[in-house]
């Protein structure tokens, strides 16, 4: 074993302190039968510097009666528990469970405290580091659960449990719970999917079309085949939402009487407007353009995002939600920020990046600015331009410009950019499309000067770009000034970036919230600026970036604004009902056949020859197709079962767990989160377990391969009170079948008052397995559960 230190302590308090101060580098050890296995195989990426031994804590091993309950010290060995007449008297099931653990050799050192805190036995998780390296699976903070599409015989039959988000969710700048809405779509619950989606982003009909979808690059399906086509599913959900817009864009139930102004009607501003209006505030949106939408309307071409969709969305905000739009109004000229602030309680800046940066290029004045070009085409659907277009820039805007020029009928479209093909900031998909439509790429060239003759553009002198970034990754292009090339063109469009323009703020506000880089200084998380009542987000804060980042910023700022406006409402309180809901949904499931499909469902796409300026290139998946694609989502979570034999009994008995800090119910500690460690604080130690006297007869039935050593494949903790073969009351908790002990309230309700017959016993098993969800290799556990329940019910009638 790799070395660690051994710290002796005299009390739990001291042990707690040592663990806390160890900051993650010190682990408590009781019997060591679980922990030493973990350490020997170096299963976890973090290896402790020291263990603090709980063995020497005097008075930590006892079994006694206390206030009418059975109290067991956490340091008590399973052998002591298995042999104790007092335990048998209070709860036969606990005695049986303790006796079923491992073998006498383990039970003589293993403690009950260590047992309930033990780690899982998933074989991927347990794969020793010494043979080829440990597996950094989902439970260890990695991305993938290997058991989903692997060997899962000893895994859950009721679904997995989330371990802090999936990799697609982490890759999404808005943190969208992608597997969450995919799961709803699999159940054909589109309304449920929409509800989840709206927590993150109010415009899937836009983002599904315009977002580069980093989530798909991080999708774990790509390990097996194609990534889940997340954008296509999202788009169908967006279509669904627009179809039912009355339900999703609604005026608030109650007005708060507070007023908010949003400056800038782009994706970020509209998002902030949506969430603020939903919270009951009066919202006014100002924008200098004729219509709302910002880049969604004026930057992104029709063929990617039809403007009818932008219209429909903005109209919903206006007419259904009651958001006021003040258009054609340039703030700073037609109205000052101060005037707006005087009329409102809070102001949000989502003004974006719309200005042309000056490059200092000879002949620059003869060129066209990319964003203006797009804006004009998006507004008038036509544009006078030359025949041989040259686009400068390698990002997504440049791609949009180049494709738009093609579709406007340019004879030739060339694109020149500093970056080599693989370094281009534009998404690969768009580059492919541009190539398909005949755009010629010139990679690795910088702009020398515009070649002209009599005030007419003739082309561009390009110079070889040697490298784009310096060793620190900063943008600092190096050129070979002599290595030049002439690119003929009569129409040059510069799409080499946009600039944030903040003169509208006025001198006073500028001095408070403008950074030296010419951006708005706002907190990335809260959107707060240094000026009270002013908030900001999106490109105006970050410089040109993705729409989805602006959406996330608008959402976060709206949350902060709402809190600042109504501090009395504090953190959103979760209703008891909500908690119940959450509990029901805590197990994740996936589609067993669906996850095996390696090919994504693809929407229809027009061939290059049929694509146009106005029609969308791609169609939407219908709901059935989208559902099929959602079935490919693995629902990345941990599907390992809790291996403890003791916890199902403690949950069944309603035991209380005393720690160094508090007393928790067994249900809370063992069933509400994936691991006990997710609930216990660092250094919080279990000190005692209290069990009320069981009513009726209790048992622990454990099914396993060999009757010693092996962990349960299925186990059943039960308590029955029966009279004349009629069940008066019962409690049933399954072990080994879910990430946490699995309660069976429906079965209990069903059996209460029933006469025990083979039919009722069989029916009890059927009900118990109603929500079962077998993985690819563990269906037999369902039969074992039914059998265990059948036998136990029949036994209760004897």
């Amino acid at each position, binding site marked *: 074993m*790799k070395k660690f230190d*051994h710290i002796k302590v005299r009390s739990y308090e001291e042990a707690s302190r040592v663990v806390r101060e160890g900051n993650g580098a010190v682990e408590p050890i009781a*019997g*060591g039968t679980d922990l030493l296995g973990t350490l020997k195989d170096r299963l976890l990426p973090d290896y402790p510097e020291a263990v603090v031994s709980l063995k020497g804590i005097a008075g930590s091993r006892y079994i006694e009666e206390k206030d009418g309950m059975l109290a067991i010290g956490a340091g008590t060995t399973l052998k002591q528990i298995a042999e104790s007449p007092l335990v048998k008297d209070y709860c036969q099931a606990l005695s049986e469970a303790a006796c079923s653990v491992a073998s006498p050799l383990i039970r003589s*050192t293993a403690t009950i405290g260590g047992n309930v805190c033990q780690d899982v036995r998933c074989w991927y998780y347990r794969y020793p580091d010494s043979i080829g390296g440990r597996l950094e699976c989902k439970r260890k903070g990695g991305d993938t659960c290997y058991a989903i599409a692997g060997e899962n015989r000893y895994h859950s039959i009721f679904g997995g449990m989330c371990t802090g988000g999936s990799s697609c969710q982490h890759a999404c700048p808005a943190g969208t719970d992608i597997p969450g809405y995919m799961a709803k779509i699999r159940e054909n619950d589109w309304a449920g999917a929409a509800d989840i989606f709206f927590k993150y982003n109010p415009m899937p009909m836009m983002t599904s079309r315009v977002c580069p979808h980093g989530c798909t690059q991080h999708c774990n399906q790509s390990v097996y085949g194609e990534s889940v086509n997340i954008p296509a599913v999202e788009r169908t959900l967006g279509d669904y939402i627009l179809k039912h817009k009355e339900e999703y864009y609604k005026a608030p139930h109650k007005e708060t009487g507070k007023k908010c102004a949003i400056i800038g009607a782009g994706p970020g501003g509209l998002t902030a407007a949506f969430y603020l209006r939903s919270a009951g505030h009066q919202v006014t949106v100002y924008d200098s353009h004729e219509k709302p939408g910002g880049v969604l309307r004026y930057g992104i071409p029709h063929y990617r995002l039809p403007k009818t969709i932008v219209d429909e969305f903005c109209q919903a905000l206006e007419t259904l939600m009651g958001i006021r739009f003040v258009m054609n109004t340039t703030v700073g000229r037609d109205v000052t920020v101060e005037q707006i602030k005087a009329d409102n309680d809070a102001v949000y800046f989502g003004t974006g990046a719309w200005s042309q940066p000056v490059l200092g290029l000879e002949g620059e004045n003869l060129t066209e600015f990319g964003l203006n070009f797009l804006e004009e085409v998006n507004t008038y659907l036509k544009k006078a331009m030359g025949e041989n277009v040259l686009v400068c820039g390698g990002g997504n805007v440049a791609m949009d410009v180049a494709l738009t020029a093609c579709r406007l009928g340019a004879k030739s479209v060339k694109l020149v950019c500093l970056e080599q093909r693989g370094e281009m900031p534009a998404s690969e998909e768009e580059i492919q499309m541009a190539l398909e439509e005949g755009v010629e790429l010139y990679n690795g060239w910088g702009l020398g000067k515009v070649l002209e003759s009599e005030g007419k553009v003739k082309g561009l002198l390009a110079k070889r770009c040697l490298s784009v970034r310096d060793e620190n990754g900063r943008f600092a292009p190096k050129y070979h000034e002599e290595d030049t090339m002439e690119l003929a063109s009569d129409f040059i469009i510069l799409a080499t970036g946009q600039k944030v323009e903040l003169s509208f703020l006025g001198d006073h506000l500028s001095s408070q919230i403008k950074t030296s880089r010419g951006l708005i200084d706002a907190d990335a998380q809260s959107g707060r600026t240094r000026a009270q009542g002013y908030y900001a987000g999106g490109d105006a804060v970050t410089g040109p970036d993705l729409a989805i980042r602006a959406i996330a910023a608008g959402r976060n700022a709206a949350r902060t604004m709402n809190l600042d406006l109504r501090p009395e409402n504090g953190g959103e309180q979760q209703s008891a009902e909500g908690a119940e809901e959450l509990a029901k949904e805590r197990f994740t499931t996936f589609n067993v056949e669906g996850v095996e499909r390696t090919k994504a469902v693809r929407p229809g796409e027009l061939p290059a020859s049929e694509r146009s300026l106005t029609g969308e290139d791609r169609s939407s998946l219908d709901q059935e197709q989208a559902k099929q694609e959602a079935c490919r989502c693995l629902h990345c979570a941990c599907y390992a079962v809790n291996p403890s034999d003791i916890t199902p009994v403690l949950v069944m008995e309603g035991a209380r767990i005393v720690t160094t800090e508090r007393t928790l119910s067994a249900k809370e500690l063992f069933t509400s989160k994936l691991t006990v460690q997710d609930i216990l604080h660092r250094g919080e130690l279990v000190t005692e377990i209290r069990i009320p006297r069981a009513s009726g007869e209790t048992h622990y039935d454990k099914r396993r391969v060999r009757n*010693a050593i092996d962990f349960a494949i299925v186990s059943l903790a039960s308590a029955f009170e029966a009279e004349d073969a009629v069940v008066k009351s019962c409690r049933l908790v399954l072990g080994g079948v879910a990430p946490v002990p699995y309660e069976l309230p429906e079965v209990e309700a069903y059996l209460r008052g029933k006469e025990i017959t083979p039919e009722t016993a069989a029916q009890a098993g059927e009900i118990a397995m109603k929500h079962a969800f077998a993985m690819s290799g563990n269906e037999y556990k369902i039969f074992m559960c039914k059998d265990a329940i059948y036998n136990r019910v029949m036994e209760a009638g004897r």
Partner: protein
Amino acid sequence: MKEHLEQICMTVNGVPRKFVIGDGVGCVSPSETLLDTIRDRLGLTAAKRSCEHGACGCCTVIVDGDAVASCMVLTADCDGSSVTTLEGLCDPVTGELSPLQKAFADNSAFQCGFCTPGIIMSTKALLDQNPNPTEKELTEALSGNYCRCISHYQVIRTVMGFINEMKRKEA
């Protein structure tokens, strides 16, 4: 982190032993298992190193009256303990086997013998605590000791015979 150079005392087969826990030469490392200590430090090699995960019982020794898997116990945690290994069952002076060991030998209750020290230690712990076990209790007590040569049947027969023999002798 605090300074924790500790000294631990334990008796092994009746002999008091003192170990300094630490990283120095001759010290017992804080992460050393009891199995490592008895085999590599004390040269008591009857307890076998096998699965090293508490699953086979080949490393069984008796600690304070209980049979334990010594591969899953830290020596540093054994302060004040009394440890018995198979070597401690024979007569310390003459080296004569204990009656239980003899029974195993006389009845050939083994094949290759790799698991036998562990099995004998588990049996010994059981008989010390319960001199008159049923066959079921015996099988249960030996359920953590694996034998890949399938000597179990012979073991159970031998031990049950041994118990009856003892009873007869006592009567």
